[in-house]
């Protein structure tokens, strides 16, 4: 790994002063009560604000140094918005985003600049994440120039080092993104994020646009980078298996809320929230082939409700087979179980085979109920 050594050496000599580091005990990233609402405007003459899309609603989590937190959930649950808030591509409505103890939630662009060296982002779409009009050298060189990381005449050699680090031919710096395959493009995006030597990388669905075989290449690259440079990850994905592979700690989001956080082992073997249970049991698994056919699974009925007008109390209650009256009136807090496993449910419990049956019965009942409602209306 010649490239890596060269890189570490040169950064220590040329890197300008960085932000003062917090004490070792503060977590690298601490998010507290983060809220993001998008206003919904009417279509009348006066464009009044008629509602709020509650994309992210009061979530808190921490990312430890050198570790990875996985953020999973289905589309529209607010996981990507959270990633954009942490990188300040979006401005939070309220709440704190503490990076090494400094709250960056409401910094102005100028003040934010030093933190941009510490927090980087990798995107999902390898085709839209690289400017087609710039050469690879210019794409990876931009962060070096913006932050004056290396003198102008050294930019090219650093770009080549970075290309080598992500496993690309360093001689290809003069090419345009159009000539690279999806996996190679994703590597270029990773090299761009690495250029500033960040402490935290927000990886927003970094492999979901790639074919299975390429996915594994990129996952392995990310893993080795984490080991090599001690980078922490906020790893956002919808694929539960990918998150399990990459993250020692995982948070599950539903409709703008974190419903369950736990370490990998605990979350995947003992999920306590009904939604997590449903999510896990929905994932099709190759190993099922040995048994043959589909297993008894938890069935969810209906769709995710609108984030403009989320259900009262627990947001999952409209699709939950365990729901009782209390779920509609009281929002369940994120409560700690043993060993740091936290869950937001009034009836948190490990899954049983009865859950699958109960959920299937509830699903069947829901369909008949709604259909009868339609008959009554007609």
């Amino acid at each position, binding site marked *: 790994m010649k490239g890596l050594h060269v890189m570490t050496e040169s950064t220590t000599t040329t890197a300008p002063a960085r932000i003062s580091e917090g004490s070792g005990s503060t977590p690298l990233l601490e998010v507290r009560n983060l809220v993001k609402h998008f206003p919904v405007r009417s279509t009348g003459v006066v464009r009044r604000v008629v509602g709020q899309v509650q994309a992210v609603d009061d979530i808190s989590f921490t990312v430890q140094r050198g570790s990875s937190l996985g953020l999973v959930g*289905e589309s529209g649950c607010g996981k990507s918005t959270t990633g954009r808030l942490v990188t300040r591509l979006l401005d939070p409505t309220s709440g704190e985003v503490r990076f090494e103890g400094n709250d960056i939630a409401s910094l102005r662009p100028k003040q934010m600049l030093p933190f941009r060296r510490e927090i980087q982002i990798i995107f999902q779409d390898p085709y839209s994440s690289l400017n087609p009009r710039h050469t690879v050298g210019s794409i990876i060189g931009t962060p070096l120039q913006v932050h004056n990381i290396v003198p102008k005449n050294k930019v090219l050699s650093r770009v080549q080092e970075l290309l080598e680090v992500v496993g690309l031919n360093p001689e290809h710096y003069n090419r345009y993104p159009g000539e690279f395959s999806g996996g190679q493009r994703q590597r270029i995006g990773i090299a761009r994020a690495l250029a500033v030597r960040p402490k935290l990388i927000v990886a927003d669905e970094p492999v979901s646009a790639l074919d299975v075989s390429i996915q594994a*290449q990129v996952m*392995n690259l990310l893993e080795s980078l984490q080991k090599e440079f001690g980078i922490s990850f906020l790893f956002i994905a919808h694929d539960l*298996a990918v998150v399990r592979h990459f993250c020692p700690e995982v948070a599950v989001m539903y409709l703008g809320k974190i419903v369950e956080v736990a370490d990998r082992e605990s979350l995947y073997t003992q999920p306590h929230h009904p939604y997590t249970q449903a*999510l896990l049991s929905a*994932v099709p698994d*190759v190993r099922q082939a040995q048994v043959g056919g*589909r297993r008894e699974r938890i069935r969810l009925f209906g769709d995710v409700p609108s984030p403009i007008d989320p259900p009262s109390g627990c947001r999952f209650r409209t699709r939950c087979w365990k729901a009782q009256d209390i779920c509609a009136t009281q929002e369940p807090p994120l409560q700690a179980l043993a060993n740091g496993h936290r869950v937001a449910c009034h009836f948190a419990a490990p899954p049983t085979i009865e859950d699958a049956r109960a959920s299937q019965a509830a699903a069947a009942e829901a*369909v008949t109920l709604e259909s009868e409602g339609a008959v009554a209306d*007609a």
Partner: protein
Amino acid sequence: MSMNETTNSQQPFLAVEDLTVRFPTPDGVVNAVTELSYNVELGRTLGIVGESGSGKSVSSMAIMGLHDRRRAKISGSIRLQGTDLVDVDDDRMRRIRGNVVSMIFQDPLSSLHPFYTIGDQISEAYLAHNKASKAQARKRAIELLERVGIPQAGRRVDDYPHQFSGGMRQRAMIAMALVNDPQLLIADEPTTALDVTVQAQILDLLQDLQREFGSAIIIITHDLGVVAEMADDVLVMYAGRCVEYGKGKEILTRPEHPYTWGLLSSAPHLTGDPGQPLTPIKGSPPSLVNLPSGCSFHPRCPYASRLPDDRCVELLPELRPGGRGAGHLVRCHLPNPDEIFVDEIQPRIG
């Protein structure tokens, strides 16, 4: 059904034989599908697996006669209950499409016409193959929407696609495909655009429907998990060719082709040791215009070098019977794949 041929009991319901589809382009001929053969019986499900550009969608579009007729050069045969769909004239093909064979697609939003109501679009499919009044067609549409689990179908029938959620749109697409009780349903990545809980709903629905109507299903996907749960038979495609074909249970637990091994060991799982590194297939899929010589997979195959001569580089392996029961076929030169499998692959895929 409009099929008049007498159905021979020995004849498979659908028999694809040596299907080859090529597209001449200014940059060269795209070898989308090469000498593909498989059978599907009523009541059974075939899963076609492959990465993007492996030709899995093109082959099914050819069954539907939906490939670009002007551009594509097609050869081989597609026998549906004895009728060769490659030769059949446009008008006859049109009467088979959506009637005997129907199809659902990956992205239900773009696959539904944005300007017509869901009910209109389903009725239209019914009216295209049945002599019926508009009211009857509408009744049929509501009936099917109910069957696929759309709540308040009587009211939602007049909604436009953009008023449906992603999962409901795919249900509507399924209702549209089933409106004429087809015997063969082709599902091209039916759940790729959907969330995992919705995917489970749709897969459940497809299985329930198959049990109910006894139709044959071809499911095309890149997701091995979906195939494992849905398919009786599995066909693995690479660079337009079949590389492995057989019972799903066998192929997904004890495959013999290095590409299938690669697919299995590069995907992370929900169980087992999470710290175990993934083993990707190196490189990326070849261009269909310039296929590698010999076995198309040889540049990416870690075992090609283990064979003494340059067989993999020079010689295209035949599709030969494998060791996983009747009908198992594999396209590989490796003389004893099980040795490699037991030592190197099985520990990885658990």
